[in-house]
């Protein structure tokens, strides 16, 4: 591993090793304002490697590895090396995180309270978080929200925001001065572009927030708001957490505690502006 990079995102430190310079160069540029791992000791290791020595040069193909690996991971072409690095960091978190209960949700904060948005791919978690952040909310993360079982607080994990297809233009419109990564067309998940979170999000990444509202957004429907019963919200969140089972008793207490403390609401919306309006109205009623 001739090239490497270290970065801390929220409470989690990563060390990324790579057989190629290019993905590391992207990471260095995009994460340049982020801190290094606490005391220089990372929590997770990521490796971007060539399966055979000659694959470093011939149709270079990036395999994903690290502390935690899945044998079925498919390699990505080198031009999508940044995506490979981000996916590999996600994988380490998804499989290895034990200190926090991972919720597959985006999170934004206002007045010390967190709004969580969770749902299937395409529901709008990343886009909504980006739009809300443009309207004064503090961005905490678009992929994982970290729930501390000891305190019930949400900790920020503000990675590069992963925008797909139509969301790219929407986010660029909301954040015209944002720093963006390379456009990667035709990845396995569609066109992808990464956006660097704003300076405020980076500066506040160590400030947790009390969860106050859990939203299940659905994009492409007439505007409607429905309460989600606690039982249903609980089950959906067990499926939206990659380490709920691994955390055992602590996970159960943390998740039932969250559901007991926080109202759950389904929000159907036709476009970003409608979603923002509905969310702001719900927040005002809390």
């Amino acid at each position: 591993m001739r090239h490497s990079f270290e970065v801390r995102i929220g409470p989690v430190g990563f060390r990324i090793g790579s057989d190629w310079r290019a993905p590391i160069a992207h990471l260095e540029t995009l994460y340049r304002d982020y801190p290094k791992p606490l005391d220089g000791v990372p929590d997770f290791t990521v490796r971007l490697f060539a399966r055979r020595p000659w694959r470093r040069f011939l149709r270079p193909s990036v395999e994903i590895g690290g502390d935690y690996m899945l044998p079925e991971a498919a390699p990505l072409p080198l031009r999508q090396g940044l995506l490979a690095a981000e996916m590999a960091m996600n994988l380490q978190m998804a499989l290895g995180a034990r200190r926090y209960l991972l919720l597959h949700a985006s999170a934004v904060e206002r007045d010390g309270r967190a709004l969580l948005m969770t749902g299937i791919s395409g529901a709008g978690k990343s886009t909504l978080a980006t739009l809300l952040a443009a309207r004064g909310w503090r961005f905490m993360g678009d992929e994982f929200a970290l729930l501390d079982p000891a305190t019930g607080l949400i900790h920020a994990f503000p990675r590069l925001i992963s925008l797909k297809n139509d969301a790219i233009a929407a986010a660029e419109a909301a954040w015209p001065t944002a720093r963006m990564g390379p456009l990667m067309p035709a990845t396995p998940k569609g066109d992808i572009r990464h956006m660097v979170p704003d300076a405020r999000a980076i500066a506040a990444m160590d400030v947790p927030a009390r969860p106050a509202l859990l939203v299940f957004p659905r994009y492409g429907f007439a505007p409607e708001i429905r309460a989600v019963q606690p039982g249903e919200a609980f089950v959906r969140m067990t499926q939206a957490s990659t380490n709920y089972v691994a955390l055992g008793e602590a996970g159960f207490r943390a998740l039932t505690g969250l559901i007991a403390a926080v109202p759950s609401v389904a929000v159907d919306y036709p476009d970003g502006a409608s979603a923002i309006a509905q969310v702001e109205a719900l927040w005002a009623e809390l």
Partner: protein
Amino acid sequence: MHDSLYHGPPEGGLLVAPLDEFTAVYHRASGITHLLTEPAPQILAILGEGALSLDALLDRLGLDYDLADGTREALAARLAELVESGLVERA
């Protein structure tokens, strides 16, 4: 069959979190979370006080609750589910 006793988990063996019509339960011995709806939480609460046969449980439920048109067969089905999930043992 008539006399087998149904045992709930030992003292401290369950974490119970009522949510709404559903109750979430964490079974410490297995680490599995189950979602229960009535009458399962009520059955577990009673079995927590001591093992009972099907008929004794039916009687006890009838004392605490109005069972309306609930049948012995229905209770047997609920117990079978609880046994299958590992929350109750039949001895």
